[in-house]
């Protein structure tokens, strides 16, 4: 459970990071007062693009309009020509580029999850859209529409949700960022170099995500502890007669206790290994059936942590019933049926 939840939380972030990196921008400009996971309302005037293109070292400026469910379920409206000049051409899995305002492009994984096919008409936001192509994932959004169409859809004609800048040389990125930040006309606009922007895609930078994960882990540990505790308690009760037999053979408390604890340690190790295997199953389920907003990765660095949690929890859960069992009178234990 813990591995799946951590895997999903990281998977969602990494998926978003991959799509953001796929834009190919050197600098990101966001609307004032926006955050990583907030809806980026289209509040930046489109005419800013020409302003940015006039800046020294900036060779290309383009932007997108987001619509829908923000960063997790993203729809991007783009200027195709400029966007492809910045990020490289779309790699179409099926179909081809948009040629009409009612055309829509879908990310291949999203299309597969939704079972949408090229040539199909789908209904979104009370409109019919013709699926003209599917593209290899990792390009800004899960659904791509022409910029003007999304602006009209969002009621944001002439506005942009974010602006992407391409700089002539990588070594000039920081220089351009510094110059833009120093420009009073851009006061309040979050401006990030690509490295800064990518660094925001971490558990620590998403508000309350780390706390959420800790709550989930704490719940996981508590539930796991109770399950192991009750299982061991029941198991020890069921084995009362066996414990009596061992006592009649002269087994000491330490001997019986060590058997129970060793069994628990082996069981918890096997359980932890099975749990790790199960995350491959949950990854397949999440990535194929949980919806496009979710993505799970395998978090190998958490394997020893969860194994430690499983072993420690089960051993603690064993100690009480085990201690109770070894203190039991041998005669009572032998007469247990």
């Amino acid at each position, binding site marked *: 459970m813990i591995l799946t939840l951590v895997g999903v939380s990281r998977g969602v972030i990494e998926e978003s990071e991959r799509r953001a990196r796929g834009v190919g921008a050197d600098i990101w400009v966001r609307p004032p007062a926006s955050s990583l996971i907030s809806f980026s309302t289209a509040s930046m005037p489109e005419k800013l693009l020409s302003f940015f293109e006039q800046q020294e070292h900036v060779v290309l400026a383009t932007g997108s309009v987001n619509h829908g469910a923000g960063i997790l379920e993203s729809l991007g409206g783009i200027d195709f020509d400029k966007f492809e000049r910045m990020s490289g051409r779309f790699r179409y899995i099926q179909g081809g580029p948009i040629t009409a305002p009612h055309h829509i492009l879908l990310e291949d994984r999203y299309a597969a999850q939704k079972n949408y096919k090229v040539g199909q008409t789908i209904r979104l936001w009370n409109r019919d859209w013709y699926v003209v192509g599917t593209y290899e994932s990792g390009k800004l959004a899960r659904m791509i529409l022409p910029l003007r169409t999304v602006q009209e859809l969002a009621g944001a004609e002439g506005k942009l949700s974010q602006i992407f800048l391409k700089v002539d040389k990588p070594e000039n990125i920081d220089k351009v960022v510094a110059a833009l930040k120093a420009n009073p006309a851009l006061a309040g606009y979050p401006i990030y170099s690509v490295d800064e922007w990518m660094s925001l895609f971490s558990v620590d930078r998403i508000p309350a995500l780390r706390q959420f994960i800790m709550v989930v882990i704490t719940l996981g540990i508590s539930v796991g502890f109770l399950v192991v505790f009750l299982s061991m308690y029941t198991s020890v009760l069921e084995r009362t*007669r*066996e414990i*009596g*037999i*061992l*006592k*009649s*053979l*002269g*087994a*000491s408390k330490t*001997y019986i206790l060590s058997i129970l604890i060793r069994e628990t340690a082996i069981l918890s190790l096997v359980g932890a290994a099975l749990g790790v295997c199960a995350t491959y199953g949950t990854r397949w389920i999440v990535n194929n059936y949980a919806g496009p907003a979710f993505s799970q990765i395998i978090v190998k660095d958490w394997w020893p942590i969860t194994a430690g949690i499983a072993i420690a929890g089960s051993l603690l859960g064993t100690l009480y019933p085990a201690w109770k069992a070894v203190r039991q*009178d*041998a*005669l009572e234990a*032998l007469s247990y049926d």
Partner: protein
Amino acid sequence: MTDGQPPDSPIIRIRELRKIYRVGDVDVEALRGVDLDVQRGEFVSIVGPSGSGKSTMFHILGGLTPATSGTVEIDGVDLAKLSEAGRTALRKTKVGFVFQKYNLLPTLTAGENIAIAKNIAGKPVETEDWFRDVLGLLGIDQRLDHKPRAMSGGEQQRVAIARAIVNHPAILLADEPTGNLDTANSEAVLGVLRNLNERLGQTILMITHNPEAAAYGHRVVHMRDGRIVD
């Protein structure tokens, strides 16, 4: 000679043995002053009706429960002076149990059931030559890889006997060892007990209701109302 005891001294010496159980607010006198000597190599059958105190004496001799008063010496060891840990050690070295319900560990094979008794006693689990002969005598040498559920009652009881004697106990305590067996298996088990007694000199105390089974012993001790009556 064992533990400094002369060879002709009794291996079991019981004097004025009393046991009182507390059941609710009532004291129940299970043993009311039992005196008994058992010689080394003797096969003694103890018979008596339910409630006569024979099982209580069996449990005290096996160190499963302490006596209220009196003395019980096994192979020179006074059980009254033993702590719970001491009684546990006694079960490991001096006493072997055979129960009516066999009491084999169900998840282990017959061989593992015997080996665990050696492991508990801190001995190597390999089968020694003398014991290989005993397994043949018991007729279970070809059944050691089987789990108890795959064995007949008679076979299980013979495995229990093998487990009870594997550590060379001073005495073998058998509590109704044929109580769950049919006539043929009962005769086989009783024959094995007598054979072990004759060939290995194993001292055996056997509790039974069955007069025919009791006749396998050298001597029959009758109990009634917590006393030995003859």
